[in-house]
Every structure is written in C-alpha cells, then in structure tokens.
C-alpha cells in the first residue's frame, strides 16, 4: 500500500511539472508580448523595452524557464496587471465559488445517479432501465450552456421561481448546479447500471440469493459495493472535469467563480492569472485522481496488494 501511494505521488509530481511546462510553452507561443499587452497600446518603445527587462522577457528561453519554475515552486505567479493584485490571490478568491458549484452539482449527480443506476441495474431491461438509457443519451447530448439558458427561460423568466443570475443565496445555486448535474447524473447512472448488472451475474450473488435474502438485500449488501469501483473512478475524474468545465455554465449564470475569471483573463491576455488558474485546476485534478486511486484501493483489496493495478 505504501509503495503504491509513493508511486502515485511521484507520478502526480511529474504530471504537475508537465502541466507547468505545457502552460509555459503555450504562453510563450502565443502572439502578443506580455510587456506590450500589460502597458496598453499607448506605451512607447522605451517603456516596453524597460518592462521586458523587468519581466525578464529578454533573457534566453532556458533562463526564463528555470526562473519561472522557481517562481511556480514558491507559488508566485506574478502580478495581474488587470486586477492589480497577485495572480494567485485573484484565483484563490474566486475558487470557493467554483468549488461550491462543483460540490453541489456532484452531490446531486451522485445521489440521483446512484439511485437511478441501482433501480435500472437491479432489473436490467425493466421500465426504469429503458427510460433511463434513452434519457441518459439525450441528457449528455445537449450543450450545457443551452440547457442552462432553457432552465432560465422556464424557471426564472416564466415561473419566476428562481433567480436567473448572480450568487449569494441558496436559490442562486439551484439552476447552475442542476445544469451541471444533469449530464453528470446520466454518466453516474449509466455506469452504476452497467457495473451493477455485471455484478448481479456473479457467483456470490447467486449464493446470496440462494441463502434466501431478498433481492434488495442482495443488491445493497452484496452486489453494490463491488460495482462501485468504476463509479468512484468516474466521480473522481468527473469532479475534475466539472471544475474546469463549469467555465461555460458560470458564464451563463454570471456565477463569480474561476471560470468567468479565466474567460475574462484570456480575453484581456492577463497571462499571470491564466497560468495561476490553469495550474490550480490541474493541481486539484491531480489530487482528486490520487484520492480516487486510494479510495478504490480501499474498496478492492486486490488493488491494494498490486495485483489489479
């Protein structure tokens, strides 16, 4: 177990280094010099040259890269010229809102997805199963921003039941969280269903049935735990996807999270904030994947000893 954790940690560190490097490359390749962008169109050539020297942009690329790595290690991403504060501070001040939205959406998706998946998987090809499999496909096919707009149209503009934009109260959270949760529910439900349907064929389920347990006891007590391993993996991965993927939905609902900060910063070429935000999200994703790995090592002893991994 310790060896596995060690290997996972090393891989995580490597991935983070890769992400830092990738972002560095993208930002260096992008047209438009950071110095001239920050100073605006009225800056003179001398001012730009001075800024380039100050930002270290006239050093050789290797030197820039090494000093960049050093600064990233100290979590120093520089100053946001647009917001006038350290980039990481700006990102961290927006992070809680995104986290709130992601957690709310994922919690809904897990609860609804597991329940629907159990109902469908407990009786393959039953009514629930058929309805679920067809709705799941359509839920995953609608663009989330459009679903969000349709929810605004119905619940905010016609029924006047919920606010259409902004944040602050629980009612503000409902529409964006539901929008994000719908496709995730479909993913969790489909996976639970297929994984459960597979477990229900296994020998130990036959044994449990022949002991005279009710179908519900068999499902909850025996089949479900074994079916959860792929579901846990998905939940880990999808939470990361949501963190970054909520960008579009945050935009629809004017949710003051990381997503809107990233979009605005990209538009304004605020490189410092873009780098800090992208790396923060990548870091969270790496940690989430690590947690998912450890969770299913707990669920399945075979992985713990390294046989399944």
């Amino acid at each position, binding site marked *: 177990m310790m060896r596995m954790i060690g290997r996972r940690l090393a*891989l995580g560190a*490597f*991935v*983070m280094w*890769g*992400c830092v490097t*990738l*972002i560095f490359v*993208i930002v260096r*390749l*992008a*047209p*438009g010099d950071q110095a001239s962008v920050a100073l605006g169109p009225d800056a003179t050539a001398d001012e730009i040259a001075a800024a380039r020297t100050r930002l270290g942009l006239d050093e050789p690329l290797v030197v820039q890269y090494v000093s960049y790595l050093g600064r990233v290690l100290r979590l120093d991403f520089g100053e946001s010229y647009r917001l006038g504060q350290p980039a990481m501070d700006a990102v961290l001040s927006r992070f809680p809102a995104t986290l709130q939205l992601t957690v709310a959406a994922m919690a809904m998706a897990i609860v609804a997805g597991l329940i629907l998946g159990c109902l469908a998987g407990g009786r*393959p*090809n039953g009514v629930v*199963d058929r309805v679920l*499999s067809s709705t799941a*496909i*359509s839920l*995953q*096919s*609608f*663009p*989330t*921003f*459009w679903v969000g*707009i*349709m929810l*605004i*149209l119905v619940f905010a*503009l016609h029924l006047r039941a919920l606010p259409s934009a902004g944040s602050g109260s629980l009612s503000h959270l409902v529409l964006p969280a539901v929008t994000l949760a719908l*496709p995730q529910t479909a*993913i969790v439900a489909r*996976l639970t*269903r*297929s994984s459960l*349907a597979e477990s229900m064929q296994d020998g130990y389920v036959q044994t449990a049935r022949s002991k005279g347990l009710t179908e519900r006891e068999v499902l909850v007590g025996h089949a479900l735990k074994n079916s959860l391993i792929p579901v846990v*993996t*998905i939940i880990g*991965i*999808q939470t*990361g*996807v949501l963190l*970054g*993927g909520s*960008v*579009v939905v945050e*935009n*629809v609902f004017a949710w003051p999270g990381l997503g809107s900060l*990233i*979009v605005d910063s*990209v*538009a304004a*070429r605020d*490189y410092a904030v*873009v780098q800090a935000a*992208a790396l923060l*999200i*990548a870091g969270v*994703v790496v940690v989430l994947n690590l947690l998912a790995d450890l969770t299913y090592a707990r669920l399945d002893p075979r992985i713990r000893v390294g046989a399944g991994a």
Partner: protein
Amino acid sequence: MTTTSHPVSTSVGHDAATTTPPLPEMRRRSARRVLGWLRFLPHAVIAGYLFLAVVGPLLVDYDPMVTSITDRLLSPGSTTSDGSTAWLGTDGVGRDVLAQIVLGARTSITIAVLTVTVCAVIGIAVGLVAGYVGGWADTVAARLIDVLIAFPGILLAIVIAGLFRPSIAIVVIALSAVGWIGFARVVRGTALSLRERDWVSAARVMAVPRRSILTRHVLPFVAGPVVAMATLEFALVVLAEAGLSFLGIGLPPTAVSWGQTVAAGKEYLEIAWWISTFPGLALALLVVCVGLVGDQLTARYGGKR
C-alpha cells in the same frame, strides 16, 4: 483508466434487441423490418446535416453584416419587410435565425471534420508506436497523456484558442490538443494485442521492416475501432466548439456558429425565446444522431475504450 468526459459514452450501452416478447411470426417480421429501417434514421439525419453544410450558402441568402431595424425580434413564422417568411424568427438585429442555423451547421461540421481528422492521424500514429513498439515509446506516450488529461479538456481549449488570433485553424488546434488521446488509447490497445498474432510474428520472422508491418499488417485492423471512436469524437467536438463560440472564443466575429447565436439570443431571452432555443435544438439533434450511429459502430467493432 477510461476517458469519461464523453457525453455519448457507449461502452455501457446495452442490447435492446435481445429481449423481444414472443409475437406471431408475421408481426415479428414486419416489426423487425420497421426497426431495421429505424436504425438508419440517425444516418439519414446526419446526411441531411452534411447536405445543409455543403449547399447551405446556396439555399439561404444571409449576410452577417446586414441588419434590419424593422425586422428585429420577429417571432417564428412572421413575414419580414422584404416579403419572405422567417420560419424560425429573427434575432436582435433582424437577421434570420433559420439562416444562421444552416450556416452554423457548416461551421460546426467543418471544424468537427477537420478536428476529428487531425486527432485520428495523431492518435493512430502515437497509438501504433506506443502499442507495437512498446517500451520507452509507450512510457513517453502514457506520461504525455497523464499531463494533458490533468487539464479539463475545455479549459485547455479555452486557453489555447483564447490566446491566439481567432481563426478556424486555431479552434481545430485547440480542440485537437486533447482530442487525439481517445484514438491513441484505442489504437494502442489494439496494436498491443495484434503484436503477438501469428501473421505479425510471421512477418517479423521474415524480416519485414517494422514500418511495413505496422502499415500493412497492423493498421488495417485498427480501422474499425478508429471509425467508432471518430463518431464519438465528432459529437464531442461539436459540443466543445459550440461552448467556445458561446464564450466568444476562437472564431472570428464574422463567422456564423450555433454557439454564437445562442449567446446572442440570451440578451433577448425574455421577449424572444426562439433565438437561443432553435440553434441549441439543431445542435442536440446532430449530437444525438452521431451518438446513436457511434453506439451502433462500437457495438459492431467492439472498440473497448
């Protein structure tokens, strides 16, 4: 690990055809015939979209620069000032919504086809080398993928497309940055299993160059899974492109795209619901149909991801 951000995942699909209730022979036969034809409905819809994408500009007379004050926000079915009918209404500056949907199909499908092609080529190359050559090549590919999937796909696309000059090419590059991974995984898996097959071993024994083994004895067998993967990727790309253009990232402002129309309609949601609604429906119908075809292909070629 599996790629799971797919909106139209197929590996968990199940056979609806396995349990047909007992019916008299005649009815069963005709029912099966109807079902058989229904299977091709998504193909027909996709063909319709492709047709629109190719000849669309000939069918509709649309100029994104031309605006008309008198025709603003007309509801679906109203008559415009020049006597024609706006079947799906007009937008905030008097442009026809149906025309925008037709031209948006062209943008979406062009980007999707280009992106899927780029992704397939890169993915096949990486997957073949990683799976067949193995060793360090496999390790390098695996670590590269680990790094790329640490960024939620749309995030990397936003950063790339947003920082460079808007064009169709940059959207394709941005969406391909992570799009090839699915192909690489599928091809790697297939190549790995093919490596030990008899005809490949035989070719190796006869000192056929590795490049020829890859292209003549391995490549043909990855075609099926790659085609199945391509349909899934197509659906994903259409969704992602709409997301980007909804945010106003990537495409030049003169391009017509579904995401842009939906975004523009958001301002007028309360008084003109049709502007945002119809492009979204057009997009969803395409994605559903591509997903259904993808499910059929995956079931047939067993492209296990």
